């Protein structure tokens, strides 16, 4: 499978994504510099975590205008798979590829800890290898991960089943205590209506080996690999 991992100035998790894909899943990812145009064929483009452009103005506000982003928007419009992790999620929201925005954590504190995600929907290329209600453990590390959307947008997300993962406790229950950032409706990750663009605050790439405390993050990447297999692709496209 052809993975592209975009590097913005200030990205810092691109190597983790690269290593996770290569070492744990035998993939051959390729780094893409933000100043280049998107060339070549890819199955999935990853926007990694970090602090693109120093998080100046708003997280992701400037990265969305990087030259490569025009190609990413066109790629997404044609149905290409786009995965935004943490800062990547913020960039996708700023770029209008995903609805809503990510604002300051309600605690005002940077949060860095292992969280539990409950898989809410499996008919997406990012969760198709999981089971509904399955719990995935992976870390979060962010200061601005509180998801916000106005009531009408939130209603659309629910109606179209675009909320793919929610924060939950170890027993699978959502609660304020299990929500690390005050995110609306305990949202950890959402996809677009066409289900080919997915953004989440937690880091699946940092939960890809036992030594890191969890291998659950592989579920997200292996779902993408499975979805790119023709049969599965048809399944999630309906």
């Amino acid at each position: 499978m052809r993975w592209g991992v975009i590097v913005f100035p200030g990205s810092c998790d691109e190597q983790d994504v690269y290593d996770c894909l290569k070492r744990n899943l035998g993939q051959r990812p390729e780094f893409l510099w933000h100043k280049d145009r998107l060339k070549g064929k890819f199955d999935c483009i990853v926007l990694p975590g970090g602090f693109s452009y120093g998080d100046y103005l708003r997280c992701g506000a400037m990265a969305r205008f990087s030259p490569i982003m025009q190609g990413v928007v066109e790629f997404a419009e044609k149905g290409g798979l786009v995965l935004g992790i943490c800062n990547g999620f913020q960039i996708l929201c700023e770029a209008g590829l995903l609805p809503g925005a990510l604002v300051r954590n309600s605690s005002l504190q940077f949060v860095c800890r292992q969280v539990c995600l409950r898989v809410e929907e499996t008919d997406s290329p990012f969760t198709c290898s999981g089971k509904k209600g399955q719990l995935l453990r992976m870390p979060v590390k962010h200061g601005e991960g509180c998801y916000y959307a106005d009531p009408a947008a939130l209603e659309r997300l629910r109606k179209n089943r675009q909320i793919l993962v929610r924060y939950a406790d170890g027993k699978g229950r959502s609660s304020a205590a299990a929500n690390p950032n005050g995110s609306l409706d305990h949202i950890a990750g959402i996809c677009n209506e066409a289900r080919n663009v997915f953004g989440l605050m937690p880091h699946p790439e940092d939960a890809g080996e036992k030594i890191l405390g969890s291998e659950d993050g592989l579920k997200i990447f292996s779902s993408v690999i499975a979805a790119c297999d023709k049969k599965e692709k048809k399944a999630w496209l309906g």
Partner: protein
Amino acid sequence: MRIRIFVCLKEGVLDPQGKAVERSLHSLGYQEVRDVRVGKYIEISLDAPSRPAAEARIREMCDKLLANPVIEDYRFEIQE
């Protein structure tokens, strides 16, 4: 022209920073303080043929980059 742009979180968007500042002011004895909202203040200089032309350009800049319409409102003042 010198432009002063004010960007603030929309009503209804939680502002934890504003809340924290409000609590601090209360603990300093300013009990009368309510509804603190923390925003951004941006100054820019601009060459434009006229005031309406400048306004149109500024609005474009705010909508595109300086504010996020999903969560923020903005207003600006022009000094000639």
